[in-house]
């Protein structure tokens, strides 16, 4: 299906919503108000772990303008099992008996005036018995501090069916992979290397914070939410209410960013419960600050070991990865598994052992964030790979190419790689960086270096997308799908696909905002799955409509291949401009579940996402300050549906990862988050951009993808962090193994190397 000439697909159409956004006319849920609604403000736990002894709401309730003060016990009266979560039903709508992380919602004030609600929320008094807390993922593995007394698997997803209920452990999921015989490889090795790398806790920072407005009346609930996954939210709210899904309606609009923060249930269950209790519409709108307490990116520790033979071939790799999932599992177990099986890197290694653990701690929950655990892994395996190359005296790119995974070879999970252009992506970076030409290493106190990083990701599988395409009697067309456009340009891509299949100009195509009463099921907008999965569903639905149009043309006696305009066809059939032709389709790719003991699967993913970054940096040796002179990002995204959107996706992903690499860090001291605001949690600004940045993709075709395409939303994140660390090593000979890479960390490493370590304070 790939290749051939296309008229709409493959062209850089401007984004359908672009004009409305830049002129301030686009609709966002955060700006929405409902008649007679109440504003909710959350009272949050100031401690990380403790038993709730009592909650005194009297002063808050007495404030004029306060309608309700609601606690977890109040929620329990209307929803007997008020726990939610995609992997475990472990997260209470409001805390019950215990709090497990600072910032956890404990009670809510409802008022007509949000300022009154906020003031009253501060007047709620909670008495806690504080318990010891655990914050570090490695400690959590053996800690006496148990975050959850009992684990309750949700059993929702096909790929997480094996989750078991366990007692007295912080391990939400352990994933193990055995490929070949790693122990034997290490025994046979000429060289053995071992390193440990760590990453910090960060946050998605969507500029439209999480928001939900719920209106529960009689036996029907409508929730307006800035969510990436309306179908899942419907499923979960219906489950909590014990209602059919047809009685729960989730509506979205354009999202002001998502990045994985808005997948699964975030504030929707709370808004629904509050409306159920108050019998009025309720708006739960988080502030930027509150998002830090809601969902984050996993901190991680990764111990990686390699066995290398005398020729520089990596013959064995052992990976132990600990994922800090925070107090509630969210989708962390899937991160542990899906990302876990690529932990040995994009290399053809015969003997691999992987142990990957999702751990509960007393931090805010961690979930999906652009890359779904992959950037944490690439940080480790590409730093490690670079160190090996340098120690063996082999050029870092030559060493990678010697070991690289190629099509037709099995990845460690046991799946034969197809349409995975690892080497071409690496070559693409090397070429743009003029890797084989001499490089100016700088002089004096300004030294320069360069480095690369190559990473990859399997798509989440198996997941389903459904779509409906309706052709109107005037020849225009409406696409109904639950893919959420959160800035990634999916509406434009889906319109292009429908336009291509139906030969209807894109200007006449409308893509409906997801509304679960209107748009059919989609697993969620996450993991760069939409172009592939929903792209297929829309392609098939449009094909279904096209076939029906052909049949109708035949029925009304139009000659085959007639180019009569569509309105004429409808008039011939219905006698006037009337009727609609509706096509529909479900799409689910093939999948083989992994064996629990070995982790092996013959078909673990419908496609591989591949991204590499090359960085040129300059280090000020007197301060450790880093300048990114050049950042080159090259990905394998198959054949693009919309080239310009793909390029901006790659650059956006790389810049986001640049922030996680250099500046972003949730600092926790004495069990408190010290910087929950953009004043002190620093995302990159314009002056932090690399002096030069190039983003591109290689010529490639994903044979089983819609028009040769595959996902492109995350690949730009993969290689950024290790490319920078490797470039620093190249420049000044020091190795940073913990993110973020601050100027002080570089300076301290330089002083260490000079034998003059800087004192702690």
């Amino acid at each position, binding site marked *: 299906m790939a290749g051939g000439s296309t008229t709409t697909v493959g062209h850089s159409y401007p984004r359908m919503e672009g004009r409305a956004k830049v002129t301030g006319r686009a609709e966002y849920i955060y700006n929405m108000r409902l008649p007679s609604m109440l504003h909710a403000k959350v009272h949050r736990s100031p401690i990380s772990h403790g038993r709730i002894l009592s909650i005194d709401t009297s002063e808050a309730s007495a404030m004029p303008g306060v309608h309700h003060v609601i606690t977890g016990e109040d929620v329990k009266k209307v929803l007997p099992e008020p726990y939610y979560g995609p992997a475990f039903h472990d997260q209470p709508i409001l805390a019950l008996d215990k709090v497990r992380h600072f910032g956890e919602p404990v009670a809510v004030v409802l008022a007509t005036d949000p300022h009154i609600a906020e003031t009253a929320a*501060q007047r709620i008094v909670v008495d806690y018995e504080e318990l010891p807390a655990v914050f570090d993922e490695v400690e959590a593995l053996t800690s006496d501090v148990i975050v959850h007394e009992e684990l309750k698997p949700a059993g929702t997803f096909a790929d997480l069916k094996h989750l078991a209920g366990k007692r007295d452990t912080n391990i939400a999921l352990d994933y193990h992979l055995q490929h070949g015989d790693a122990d034997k490889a290490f025994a046979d090795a000429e060289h053995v290397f071992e390193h440990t790398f760590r990453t910090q806790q960060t946050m998605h920072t969507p500029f439209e914070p999480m928001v939900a407005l719920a209106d529960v009346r009689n036996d029907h609930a409508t929730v307006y939410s800035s969510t990436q996954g309306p179908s899942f939210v419907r499923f979960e709210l219906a489950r909590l209410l014990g209602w059919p899904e047809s009685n729960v309606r989730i509506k979205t609009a354009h999202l002001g960013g998502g990045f994985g923060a808005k997948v699964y249930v975030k504030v929707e269950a709370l808004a629904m419960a509050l409306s159920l209790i108050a019998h009025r519409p309720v708006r739960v709108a988080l502030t930027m600050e509150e998002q830090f307490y809601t969902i984050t990116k996993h901190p991680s520790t990764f111990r990686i070991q390699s066995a290398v033979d005398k020729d520089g071939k990596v013959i064995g790799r052992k990976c132990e990865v600990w994922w800090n999932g925070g107090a509630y599992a969210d989708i962390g177990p899937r991160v542990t598994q899906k990302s876990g099986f690529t932990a040995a890197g994009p290399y053809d290694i015969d003997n691999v052992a992987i142990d990957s653990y999702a751990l509960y701690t007393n931090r805010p929950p961690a979930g999906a964030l652009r890359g779904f655990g992959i950037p944490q892994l690439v940080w480790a395996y590409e730093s490690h790979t670079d160190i090996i190359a340098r120690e063996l005296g082999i050029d870092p790119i030559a060493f990678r190419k010697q070991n690289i995974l190629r099509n037709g070879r099995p990845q460690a999970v046991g799946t034969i790689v197809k349409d995975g252009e690892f080497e071409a992506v690496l070559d693409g970076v090397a070429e743009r960086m003029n890797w084989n030409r001499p490089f100016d290493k700088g002089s004096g106190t300004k030294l320069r270096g360069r480095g690369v990083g190559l990473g990859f990701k399997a798509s989440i599988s198996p997941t389903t997308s459904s779509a409906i395409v309706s052709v109107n009697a005037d020849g225009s067309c409406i696409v109904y799908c639950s893919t959420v456009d959160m800035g990634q340009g999916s509406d434009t891509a889906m319109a292009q696909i429908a336009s291509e299949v139906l030969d209807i100009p894109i200007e006449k195509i409308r893509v409906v905002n997801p509304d679960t009463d209107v748009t059919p099921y989609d697993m969620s907008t996450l993991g760069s799955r939409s172009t592939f999965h929903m792209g297929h569903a829309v392609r098939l639905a449009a094909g279904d409509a096209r076939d029906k149009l052909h049949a109708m043309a035949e029925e009304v006696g139009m000659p085959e291949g007639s180019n009569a305009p569509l309105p004429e066809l409808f008039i011939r059939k219905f006698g006037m401009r009337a009727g609609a032709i509706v096509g529909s389709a479900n799409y689910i790719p093939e999948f083989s579940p992994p064996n629990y003991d070995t982790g092996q699967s013959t078909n673990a993913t419908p496609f591989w996402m591949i991204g590499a970054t090359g960085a040129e940096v300059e280090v000020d040796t*007197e*301060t450790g300050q880093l300048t990114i002179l050049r950042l080159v990002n090259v990905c394998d995204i198959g054949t693009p549906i919309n080239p310009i959107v793909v390029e901006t996706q790659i650059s956006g992903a790389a810049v986001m990862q640049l922030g996680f690499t250099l500046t972003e860090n949730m*600092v926790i001291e004495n069990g408190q988050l010290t910087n929950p605001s953009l004043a002190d949690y620093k995302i990159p*600004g314009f002056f932090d951009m690399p002096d030069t940045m190039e983003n591109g993709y290689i010529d490639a075709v994903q044979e089983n993808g819609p028009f040769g395409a595959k996902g492109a939303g995350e690949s730009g994140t993969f290689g950024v962090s290790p490319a920078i660390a490797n470039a620093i090593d190249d420049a000044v000979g020091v190795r940073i193994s913990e993110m973020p890479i*601050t100027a*002080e960390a570089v*300076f301290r490493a330089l002083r260490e190397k000079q034998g003059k370590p*800087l004192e702690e304070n």
Partner: protein
Amino acid sequence: MSPFELSEPQTLQDAVAMLDASDTGIRPIAGGTAVMLMMKTGIFQPDRLISLRGIESRYSEVSVDDAGDLHIGAMTPLRRLEKSEEAAQAAPVIRRALRRLSNVRVRNVATLGGHLAHGDPHLDLPPVLIALGARALIVGASGERVIEIEDLFRGYLETALAPDELIAEVVVPAQGTRRATYMKHTTRSADDWPALGIAVSLELNGDEVGSARVAIGAATDTPRRLKSVEAALAGKALADETMQAAGDAAAAEAEVHSDARGSAAYKRELIRVFTRRAVRQIMEMGTGGAV
């Protein structure tokens, strides 16, 4: 953020009259960039804000008097000061420092008076103005007084201003042949508050330093002069050893603490490096008049 009353006096005198030294719930607001952050986080919950935006326009003007002194109205937005040719002529270091002060959105609304009266040590202009020998004209219920900028800062978010006093104007004396520079270092994003700001102003006699004024900001509790550095420079040849000595003196004199922007040990090294670099930069400016 809690609701509050907003008063909008049309004259400076009226604004001063609305302030009440005994009521901490009443505070002035100029650009609001700092106050609004404090209100958002709940650190500060005013009953009434006295907006200074409506006061006489002369408090938003920049001019040079016959003596060559630069007068900057306290309500002058930082962006206007950055664009001011008068200021750039009188003391080019002001414009250069402003270009990297926070971001243009903040500079468009933040005012010089607010920038100083806030008393946050992590701001850029206090060390610059101290090095330039600037003074502030202060208006209060009991009349006017003049205070050297170096005497304005008393502690973290504490100034010599009484609660019912306002800064009306800042005066930068004519710089003659002195040359000044400002170096800042941010350790997180580029537009972060600085971890360190160093301002150096030198009078050069040929290849020798005549007199020096050196001020530090951000790394210390308050912006302040570093007198041991000034002593290490005065009368010395403009040579590598002098710059080195100035850097070492700065690192030894400045009292620094660890915070989110860096450890104290790291900041001491930054002070050493940037003091040296600042002096070198002035030397490399050549002898072509005031810069």
